[in-house]
């Protein structure tokens, strides 16, 4: 079977499919939201502690809504759209290891998500605090990147396992991470948002302020990597046993 040489073409076809259509508009709008907030606030003027505002926006808007939803839309569409309309058969009926296919999908979705969310975080943060708090900006960026990667990996795998990945992902983000994980400290270890916040606080160091999580930095990183890796393995395994469902 073929090795890494298939990755290029797979990434290419995925990127063209994922990024060329209407959904990119939605994802772009989501990513622009924090920047819009920052612009409005700065124009409004009279801001007090901009660093604190930045942290609040990060914790309540970016990490709660923007990052998970961007990852959700990109992740579920990366392979979900092709499974849905049947074009995935053109990728499966080839002597290509299923792991490479999954890897290509995750790479494209994660990269797009990292770029969008990373730019969003940096620009909105820079607008508010300027370059006075580079540690904070770096921390927020790192946290968003880690969270996006973990989220997209999970959502890509979810779309291989079920046709209702978008709904399942929404339920996870809104219900699990929205209510449960934030309510009970015991379950914080099972929330990707917590990993992201942990990384953000850890990297921001002294500038972290109110940002933070019960989860320590290293644990957050390790768990995020573990989740992404597990998602990859499960996705590749499921794809290897994938059965075309088709009305005959």
């Amino acid at each position, binding site marked *: 079977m*073929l090795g890494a040489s298939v990755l290029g073409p797979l990434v290419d076809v995925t990127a063209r499919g994922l990024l*060329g259509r209407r959904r990119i508009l939605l994802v772009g709008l989501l990513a622009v939201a924090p920047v819009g907030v920052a612009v409005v606030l700065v124009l409004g003027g009279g801001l007090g502690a901009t660093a604190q505002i930045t942290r609040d926006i990060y914790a309540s808007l970016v990490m709660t809504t923007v990052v998970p939803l961007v990852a959700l839309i990109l992740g579920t569409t990366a392979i979900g759209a092709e499974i849905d309309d049947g074009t995935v058969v053109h990728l*499966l009926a080839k002597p290509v290891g299923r792991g490479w296919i999954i890897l290509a999908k995750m790479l494209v979705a994660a990269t797009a998500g990292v770029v969008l969310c990373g730019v969003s975080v940096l620009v909105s943060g820079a607008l508010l605090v300027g370059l006075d708090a580079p540690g904070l900006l770096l921390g927020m960026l790192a946290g968003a990147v880690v969270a996006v990667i973990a989220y997209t990996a999970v959502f890509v795998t979810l779309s291989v396992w079920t046709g209702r990945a978008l709904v399942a992902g929404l339920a996870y983000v809104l219900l699990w991470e929205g209510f449960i994980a934030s309510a009970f400290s015991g379950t914080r270890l099972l929330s990707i948002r917590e990993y992201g916040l942990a990384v953000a606080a850890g990297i921001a160091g002294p500038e972290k302020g109110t940002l933070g999580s019960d989860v320590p930095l290293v644990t957050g990183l390790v768990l995020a990597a573990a989740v992404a890796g597990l998602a990859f393995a499960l996705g590749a395994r499921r794809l290897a046993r994938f059965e075309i469902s088709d009305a*005959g």
Partner: protein
Amino acid sequence: MSETRPAPAVALNAVAKWYGNVVAVNDVTFELEPGVTGLLGPNGAGKSTLLHLVAGLLRPSAGRVLVDGRPSFGDPAVYRRVGLVPEREAVFPYLTAREFVRLSAQLQGLPIGTGAVDRALETVELGAAADRELSTYSKGMRQRAKVAAALVHDPAVLVLDEPFNGMDPRQRLHMMALLRSLAGRGRVILFSSHILEEVERVAERVLVVVSGRLAASGDFREIRRLMTDRPHSFTLRTSDDRALAGRLAGRPTVSGLTFEDGRLDVRTADFATFTRELPVLARDAGISIFELAPADESLESVFDYLVRR
């Protein structure tokens, strides 16, 4: 491309596929040889399911599907030897035909610059329109693009699901000629259709599937001959139909006679004896036979019979 190859075995052995309570394919056994085999059956008979089983995209619930002696499911390496043209229209609409075939070539591990992509496009006569996006293509053109993508690595086994769907008559003829020429070079071609004329024109062998079961396999004329419990019909044109009819009416092998201007239709339950008796009768009566043709050896009548059984 090499001209001939030793034929790989595609073999199904007591294969069944069910979804919960619904049995899509039931106890199917056959082997494919080089040449064109048509999979024929009414809609919902399980043709697509069978093709997907052969192509390794479905796991058999029972039995074994072997390509080159190895199970086809869960083994991506099988696609080096197999090309699949799926039925669903969906292709990547944002790619041009050339890019689509090139993607197929790259995923097959073909080195760049061998011209395989161009050759495949030429074979399906898409060379001129190859740089337009697939979303602008008609249904028939998309079919041809899919065929090109499936042929680019010169597979030994080609599986096509309703390949003539959406093609105009000229494209259909071209595709039929293409399939026959590939078969002539030793490839194993398996295609499905519910249109009898298509199968009749292209396939050397036929697999008839009804309600998930294999109702018949082989050359359809031979199948017809095997259906001994159904009378054969013949059409005769002779120098004196009426007189011959009179003679035939008395023979026990003849079970029915129909008389019409210029034509005599005879039904017989005993094909072998009748064909021995007829020339003798005619000669004794001094009647010349101008034409004797089987009236119901068409695939349609075979199929009809098998479906109703």
